């Protein structure tokens, strides 16, 4: 693999890793607060549709983004209502959200646009355009660093940079603020938070809302930045992969960056089967490459990659004991 191709692959890694990173951090906030969220997938999908649909109708990707976030947060609110207020089963609520999103997006898309469950292609201001970072053109010819800066780091949409900024921000919120301390505590031992006079319900709703917000970004990125429009089931299991990445990352923000980029890298490789063939001399089925992230996920979930200890109160509704 020559240097130029490597840069291309790394560039796709970042593009493909970004939605995973958003979704992974979304899951991190939720699960750190003790609410398991298998519905990341559904929230992304819902946001992907509404971002694209509203961006198309208004012609503004920013309004589209807001609509996407709003739709994702509505699903979050439903999940919160089911699992926090009514103390329902969090897995079932999450699965229900995924089904709801899968069905509703296609249904509404067909009703609004009659294009077989897609939105029309987005052009111009209805899409996020790549941003060229300052000095990228000028530094292009600097050996080694110039091409890395120009090819890999520069030239992404604003959402990519936002996703990367979310990593230190998440770390800072979780480990340096009062809110973060309480959020982590509520996922470990909600009774401790409750007896300290802090509202368990309030904290968990806040966490679920942040989860909705970040899933909203993830979905909008899929349909208005990575692609130009919504297609059926376009989230393609990314919500689940993000959950696997979260376990891989042991519920820590910086680890989440690395694990999602690893999965992004695998997805990027799957786009270039020719590279693999050249590297190892055997033709590998594209399907096998496509399956790699999922295989790795299974391996991770089976616990081969060290022991990941989830937040102790995860998945359990909080009930004051008698």
């Amino acid at each position, binding site marked *: 693999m020559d240097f130029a191709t490597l840069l291309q692959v790394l560039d796709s890694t970042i593009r493909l890793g970004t939605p995973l990173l958003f979704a992974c951090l979304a899951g991190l906030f939720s699960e750190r607060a003790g609410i398991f969220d298998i519905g990341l997938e559904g929230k992304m999908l819902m946001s992907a549709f509404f971002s694209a649909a509203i961006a198309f109708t208004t012609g503004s990707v920013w309004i589209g983004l807001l609509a996407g976030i709003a739709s994702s947060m509505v699903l979050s609110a439903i999940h919160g209502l089911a699992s926090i207020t009514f103390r329902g089963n969090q897995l079932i609520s999450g699965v229900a959200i995924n089904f709801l999103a899968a069905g509703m997006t296609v249904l509404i898309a067909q009703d609004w646009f009659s294009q077989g469950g897609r939105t029309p292609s987005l052009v111009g201001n209805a899409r996020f355009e790549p941003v060229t970072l300052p000095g990228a053109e000028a530094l292009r010819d600097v050996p080694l660093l110039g091409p890395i800066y120009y090819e890999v780091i520069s030239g992404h949409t604003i959402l990519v940079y936002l996703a990367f900024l979310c990593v230190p921000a998440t770390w800072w919120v979780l480990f340096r603020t009062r809110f973060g301390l309480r959020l982590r*505590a509520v996922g470990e*031992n909600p009774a401790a938070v409750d007896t300290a006079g802090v509202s368990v319900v309030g904290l968990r709703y806040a966490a679920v809302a942040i989860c909705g917000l970040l899933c909203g970004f993830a979905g909008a990125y899929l349909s208005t930045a990575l692609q130009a429009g919504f297609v059926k089931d376009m989230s393609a299991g990314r919500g689940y992969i993000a959950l696997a990445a979260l376990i891989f990352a042991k519920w820590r923000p910086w680890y989440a960056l690395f694990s999602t980029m690893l999965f992004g890298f695998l997805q990027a490789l799957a786009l270039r089967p020719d590279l693999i063939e050249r590297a190892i001399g055997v033709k590998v089925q594209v399907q096998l490459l496509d399956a790699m992230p999922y295989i790795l996920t299974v391996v991770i979930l089976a616990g081969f990659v060290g022991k990941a200890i989830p937040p102790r109160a995860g998945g359990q509704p909080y009930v004051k004991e008698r």
Partner: protein
Amino acid sequence: MTEQAPAIELKGISKAFGPVQANKDISIRVMPGTIHGIIGENGAGKSTLMSILYGFYKADRGEIFISGRKTEIPDSQAAIAAGIGMVFQHFKLVENFTVVENVILGAEDGAMLRPSISKARKSLKSLAEEYELNVDPDALIEHLSVGHQQRVEILKALYRQADILILDEPTGVLTPAEADHLFRILDNLRAEGKTIILITHKLREIMEITDTVSVMRRGEMTATVKTAETSPEELAELMVGRKVLLRVDKKPATPGDVVLSVDDLKVTDDKGVHRVKGVSFEIRKGEILGIAGVAGNGQSELMEVLGGIAQGTGTITMNGRTIALAGRDSDGQARRRAGIAHVPEDRQREGLIMDYGAWENVVFGYHLDPKWQSGFLMRNTAIVEEAQGKMERFDVRPPNPKLAAKNFSGGNQQKIVLAREIEQNPDLLLVGQPTRGVDIGAIEFIHQEIIRLRDQGAAVLLVSVELDEIMALSDRIAVMFDGRIMGFRDPAETNERELGLLMAGIEGEVDGDEWQAIDRQLERKEAEEAREAGDA
């Protein structure tokens, strides 16, 4: 002084959970600067009353006055603001947070953590000096001993400027020495003018430390007396409503042949921590061997291996035959075939299926016996009849075999398990925490049944964290600390102090300050466990 307003005054507090009246018209006055004991059996309503005071529940009726002022306490926040701090029986700590993080949780000074933490660190230091409450502020809770965790709970309350401290069964998890230290801390707090409410079911503690004591029975406050003017016998009678025998009557043991012999048993848990580190002992026919120790020093794991729930290494022989410690023949069924009956420590999780009826529970584990099944179908009528008989013989109330196990009180649940295991006439009975969560009245009965089994020639291995129980029942006492047996003692020739030191891992006489030695020992153990957990 005489006109001083009470620190706490409750007037006519009532609280019902559905049809159960947990508190009935309770009134109580607690004077500032005193230690006030509240004593009563399980389910008497002590914890409910304190939870109302701490804003965990809302009373149906009644008023609360703090320092003479009527105060509404709708939630814990309000209780904290009113200067009330509570140390729950089950600690409310975040296990993977540090001490200082737990202390500031909910009492931070601002949105940023750093200033709160450095302030808390300073104030922890001065609290430690003032009240002998030493804990490393940066230690993780999960690496601390229970005694130290309890100190963190007290520090949490003091950091929130609590003037009134409620402790719910604080000594249940402590060694006698740790309990003594706790009482010294409480003494210091009282001297500083703090008001303390101590909830317990241990008469000895009440007599030792309180100024006044209130007795609760079935949701009602039956009496409030000055501690100096009462006696344990009188309090026990007030608690139960009839005269109770506080001592166990038993004949001297007549040990026969060796039934169980354990040699160099080691157990490692699934986290890779060594729980039992080479334990050897023997039990003979007609003998009760009591294992004393603070919870978490390997007794539970020892019982689990003997009962076939967990696996270990070493040699165990039962009636001269080696029994398997791993693999297919090491399960509970194999143990029962070998003549071992097991009354597990956690009866609700391991002894019973809570949603099943008493009749089903009395044959569990023995359900493959042809008496109860015919290859495919269960002989339900026979089982119900058997249950009926057992419930009569063991005085289980209500004597209704169809009632689900969860609907019986703790004492009656335990009687169901005991009836099942004892009536198998085992050669060896393993019995863990036989009277945990059991009323005084039922304790008497359970102790008599265990002794009756011994007198019939069975060997009994008793594990209990209640030192009183160990001393009353055992014919020989082994003390476990940190996965090892510190030594064997004859109950007639030892005393609580000696056992207490052994339970803290200290052999022989101590020079200088006793509890400081204990503290050092505990810190050593904590450090070791932290290291082991780190390695794993």
